[in-house]
């Protein structure tokens, strides 16, 4: 088919999309900071708003402040496409995400469910991040605006504002949110400056969830669940540029959704997610492959808890 035509290297994809964005957002500030560079430090090339390429220190690229993180990256509309035909519950997206966001093993911001639509249909593995809905029920109910929708489509949480009422957790129909029930363990992330774009360090009594890794996007990288997946299940990209990539392959978003019958999970709820699913047809793996890296107890549990979706 024509898919090959759209294939691009990851570098090309990144070089196309990211520097412009970075320049537009942080350009001026970063230029100012770049005066202090020393020779040994790693440099990053950036495009300033007036079209000049500059080099700045990597270390000077601090995560954006909570106020800045409310604005969103101009010209972007982030989407994720999850190809269910490729998932075999390798769980790399889960562990990579936990490493990236400094989460304990029991907290999962992206979860992998075992789904079965009816008793006659085949089970399939179902990775589920936050859907970053365009009509987010969680944002609607937040009493203090601690969770908010950005112009680039992201729904983020400012855990310096969150009062921990958990209303968003009951409002989210997709169980995407995780609460910090106790003081988070001391890690090397603890002295990091907090930003809603990194969602770290965590704070006790506040809500966290998948953030689509905007800090990675700003650095020209894909979210960790995308790059971490060994089977290229998850595609990520900018809807306005109509392109999504899993790191090794890139597709036109509209064509991918059109050709592979992409759909919204529980579209009937009217939340308009920014995560699309490709149905589990012509699968690469049998779903039972997904039991390989699980204990017998876990397998038993999954088989018991499998629930019909509709």
């Amino acid at each position, binding site marked *: 088919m024509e898919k090959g035509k759209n294939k691009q290297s990851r570098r090309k994809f990144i070089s196309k999309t990211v520097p412009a964005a970075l320049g537009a957002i942080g350009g001026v500030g970063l230029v100012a900071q770049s005066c202090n560079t020393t020779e040994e430090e790693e440099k990053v090339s950036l495009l300033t708003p007036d079209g000049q390429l500059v080099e700045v220190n990597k270390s000077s690229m601090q995560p954006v402040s909570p106020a800045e993180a409310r604005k969103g990256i101009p010209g972007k509309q982030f989407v994720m496409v999850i190809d269910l035909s490729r998932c075999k519950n390798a769980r790399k997206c889960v562990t990579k995400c936990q490493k990236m966001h400094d989460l304990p093993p029991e907290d999962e911001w992206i979860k992998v469910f075992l789904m079965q639509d009816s008793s006659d249909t085949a089970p399939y593995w179902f990775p589920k991040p936050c859907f970053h809905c365009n009509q987010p029920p969680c944002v609607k109910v937040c009493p203090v605006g601690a969770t908010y929708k950005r112009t680039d489509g992201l729904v983020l949480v400012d855990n310096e504002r969150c009062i921990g009422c958990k*209303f968003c957790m009951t409002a989210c129909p997709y169980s995407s949110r995780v*609460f910090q029930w106790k003081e988070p363990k001391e890690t090397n992330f603890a002295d990091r400056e907090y930003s809603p774009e990194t969602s770290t360090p965590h704070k006790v009594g506040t809500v966290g969830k998948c953030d689509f890794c905007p800090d990675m996007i700003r650095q020209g990288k894909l979210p960790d669940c995308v790059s971490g997946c060994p089977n290229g299940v998850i595609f990520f990209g900018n809807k306005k540029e109509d392109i999504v990539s899993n790191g090794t392959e890139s597709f036109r978003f509209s064509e991918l959704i059109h050709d592979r019958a992409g759909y919204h999970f529980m579209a009937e709820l009217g939340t308009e997610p920014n995560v699309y699913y490709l149905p589990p047809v012509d699968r690469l793996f049998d779903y039972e492959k997904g039991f390989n890296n699980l204990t017998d107890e876990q397998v038993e549990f999954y088989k018991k808890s499998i629930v019909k979706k509709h």
Partner: protein
Amino acid sequence: MNLNPKSAKMLDYFASQMVKVSKPGIFWLAIATVFIIGGFYALIVQIVEGHIVTGMRDNVVWGIFIANFIFFIGISYAGALISGILHLLRVEWRTPIIRIAEIITVISTLIGPAYILLCMGRLDRLHHLALFGRIQSPIIWDVMAITTYLIGSIIFLYLASIRDLAALRDYPFKSKWRNKIYTILAIGFNGTPKQNRYLDRSLDIMSAIIIPLAILVHSVLAWIFGMTLRPGWHSTIFAPYFVVAAVFSGTGVLIIALWIFRKYYKLESYITKIHFNYLGIILMILGALYAYFTFSEYLTSWYGSETWEMEVLYKLFNPNEYWWWFFFAAIIGVVLPIIVILIPKFRNINSITAVSVIAVLALWVKRYLIIIPTLEAPLLPLQDMRPEYIHYTPTIIEWLLTFAGVALFCVLFFLFSKFMPILPVVKADEGNYAELRKTVLKRIVKEKMKETEIKESEKMKDL
């Protein structure tokens, strides 16, 4: 203030009761204090350790704290609706019960919201509600509604107490601090016709305001659940359902409180069987209404049998999960009060109180069943290996704080009864105003009659 002899005698009795605490009183007070200390300990543990000490986890994010919150706001309806409506309708027998009803309202509206605070992960950021409050959020509606309601019910209680405060001000207490406080609170009320007129007018206005306000408060509370896309919550009848359940439980608590104070302060001559009978009949009617709402709610979701709704229903109707609780909350707690009150043979003061206790307990369980099973049935399958994330069990900390709330309710009630007569002593028609109005009316009628007589006699003359 000049009181009639009956009121003066009553005031004498209450004033003597107010300055002493009987032995059983001390005993119960000590027990309640133990519970309050237990709750205080639990509170400190929760603040220090975080919410991990509760049974709440990522799926069941709200536990019995929210059930307690709805419960307390529910029983606050005793004063707001019952007393407000009885006042507006000028029901004769209301007098001995309205003070108790209004106190229930104020105290439970004070305690209820505390449970919301216990549910908040970051109490230190409470001021964010003022700094960043968003009117789109039902929580903000709730904050505004409850604050208004609390202020409204305090004003209502205060207005209805001014006559007694004035009488207490003029009563010769041994300790002078009481008289000083009463003097301030009585704001110079002397029962002059003008004062009486203004007070009666304000009471009428307040009771008219408090009724819609109370309905609004519980509706907003119901909408916190109704606005979410959750099976078992996302229901259009939730607001009226909550309101009816609230008045039902409020009436139940009112009956229990009447029974206790009648016993403790020996008020048999004031609070009589008539009051229990009338309140019992109100309780019965509300019970029937509540049963109707319950039936309607579960019938429609069962008949439609949408997958998600059914998951909640399976939990409620499964004997291994919540069926016996549901049976108690929705069937025993309603049918039993209705039967006992409906059949005259069963109807007496003690039996009415007993079924009220059952109804109130059932209503607490019902609140639990509204919150927990729904949260245990999210739309996505619950594939979590941690049992506490799948099934909610309240911890000792949560129970301690729950019992502390009930104990605090009792203690505050008790303290109030040591500060004010638990029944209104000075009648509304006392003082001069009503008498004056009667004499004025009589005079007017007499004058009219005279006029007509004169006219008629003149006509006769003409003829």
